[in-house]
């Protein structure tokens, strides 16, 4: 174990996986000098045939990832900000998510797409979406949302070694934060949620960037005599429904925390799964703590007002625990 930053853990996973498998190639805009930090040093180490800067043409980059994978490469495509996933959305939604089915299983697509999501930095509406809900509805792509350096490293390795298109969603607000990272090579399985905190009074399901404020909320709640269970799904596709259902049944009271916009968010979907499969155990309404149905404003006060924080999460959790 050693303390490492989230971005550093991602960078290590890239170094290790590119070193491990010569079939792994990485491309994207400004990945060489690493505008996002996570690809720093890879170009010097692996050279231009393994990693290169591309022109600005997201619509092609996602399609090229499909073609390169079909030709035998393991592709890591860096899309920079999650909003730019929309720019390259056609080949994601119409090719990546469907080609394997349409070809009767002939297409195998070992593609990892990295994108940074979330607000809090006054980047304004075009650089702050938590744009994963739209990916979940496509059906054919995996989506992971690591909340810690350890999960980031382990899940990125799993994504790169896997044979399916996987979106590795980087929590932009977590990039500089430290956490314990296991030494040596390890992976984290897809579809395995982690119970971060045990509690009997209310179950808080937190996604990616929201795990941290949710844990802070849990501490506040404990001070008020409410023991919160905190569960991080870690991967949204596949989703560990069993763990979420068990968590819901344990307390009968559920709050889902998601930095995505509320409508058709992952929080909505998880609530829907639970009212279907854990109904009998529910003792209170399932509440969602999400970004309202607005684009994030630029002004810090107006932006932060929209993003779930420990206070808001604790308040809603208290309401649900007491209901």
């Amino acid at each position, binding site marked *: 174990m050693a303390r490492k930053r989230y971005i550093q853990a991602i960078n290590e996973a890239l170094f290790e996986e590119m070193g491990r498998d010569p079939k792994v190639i990485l491309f994207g805009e400004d990945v060489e000098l690493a505008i996002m930090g996570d690809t720093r040093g890879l170009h010097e180490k692996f050279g231009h045939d393994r990693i290169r800067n591309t022109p600005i043409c997201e619509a092609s980059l996602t399609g090229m990832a499909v073609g390169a994978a079909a030709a035998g490469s393991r592709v890591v495509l860096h899309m920079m900000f999650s909003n730019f996933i929309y720019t390259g959305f056609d080949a994601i939604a*119409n090719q990546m998510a469907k080609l394997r089915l349409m070809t009767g299983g002939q297409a195998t697509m070992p593609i990892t797409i990295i994108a940074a999501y979330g607000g809090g930095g006054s980047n304004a509406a075009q650089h702050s979406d938590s744009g994963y809900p739209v990916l979940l509805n496509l059906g054919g792509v995996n989506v992971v949302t690591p909340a810690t350096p350890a999960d980031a490293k382990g899940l990125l390795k799993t994504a790169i070694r896997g044979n399916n298109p996987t979106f590795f969603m980087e929590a932009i607000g977590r990039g500089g934060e430290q956490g314990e990272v296991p030494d040596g090579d390890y992976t984290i399985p897809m579809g395995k949620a982690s119970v971060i905190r045990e509690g009997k009074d209310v179950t808080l399901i937190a996604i990616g960037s929201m795990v941290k404020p949710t844990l802070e909320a849990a501490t506040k709640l404990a001070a008020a005599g409410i023991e919160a269970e905190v569960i991080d799904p870690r991967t949204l596709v596949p989703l560990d429904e069993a763990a979420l259902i068990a968590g819901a049944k344990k307390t009968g009271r559920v709050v889902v925390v998601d930095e995505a916009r509320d409508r058709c968010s992952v929080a909505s979907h998880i609530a829907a799964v639970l009212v279907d499969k854990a109904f009998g155990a529910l003792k209170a309404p399932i509440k969602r703590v999400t970004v309202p149905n607005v684009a994030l404003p630029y002004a810090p006060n107006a932006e932060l007002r929209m993003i779930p924080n420990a206070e808001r999460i604790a308040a809603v959790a208290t309401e649900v625990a007491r209901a």
Partner: protein
Amino acid sequence: MATTQQAEPNKEQLLALYERMLLIRRMEERLRAEAAAGSLPGAVHLYIGQEAVATGVCARLQPTDWITSTHRGHGHFLAKGGEPKAMMAEIWGKRTGICKGMGGSMHVADFSKGILGANGIVGAGFAIANGAALSAKLHKDPRISVAFFGDGASNQGVFMETLNVSSLWQLPLVLVCEHNRFSEFTPSNEVTSGEIADRARAFKMPTTVVDGNDVVAVWKAAGEAVERARSGGGPSFIEAQTYRIQGHLEAESLFLAGGKYRDQKEIDEWRKRDPIDRTAARLSAAGVGAKDLEAINARVLRTVEDAVKFAMESEPADTELAFDLMFSGQKA
């Protein structure tokens, strides 16, 4: 497989080109009849009149080279060596289809033969072919990649993006524009500004415009482009000028409801330039007798017959398969 330096196809090669074009034609004539009879589940977009393009280009490729195709993809599939039986079964929606009935006419693909698939998204093939070419270049893989696309697809921005990336990195890519004068019911000149070939020239990409109804002209142009790509010379652009004889899709008149976008006269004019008839004439001139051509036709018709019989007699698609196919090793 001919070495690409060769100037002219020899008689055997010309016979092979002829037979392949005829196979595509007869397969689609049968599909046209079946569509009219209402026996196909989905829509079909026929390639009749354009056979020389796919045939001339694919004759210069290795079995391991990649192609991307379009919604009008039967010709590319067959030209690259796709199985007639597996294609017909696919179009009939059967589990013996090349895509197990999951894709249908607009998605026929055979990755084992480098056929990365017909595609229902106009312009999708550009980036897929370009990505395959990139992969080949980075891994020093000798394979090359060919993207077939229409004049209409040339108006999609990914076309320019592909011209930029492939010429920038000198990727082993051949871009083949099948200019058949129409984009659905819209004449090409109503939606296309300037010459499509000039868009490639703007990137200093080697560019040729050929008679797409002359299989030998296509064969020659493709030979040079393929050789260039194979030898590290980078991408090339070929515009094959041809004409869509059939409607955009079969039963087009139902959609048009009396509307018109071209004259029968124009269609008749182009029929006179039929690529298969022209090749037959060439072969006769080269001393191939009518009987030999008839024998080829008979052989082709048997292939079509067998393929249709296979398709019709095959089991319907597996209704539960989709859950296993969405992901590799993971249930949907």
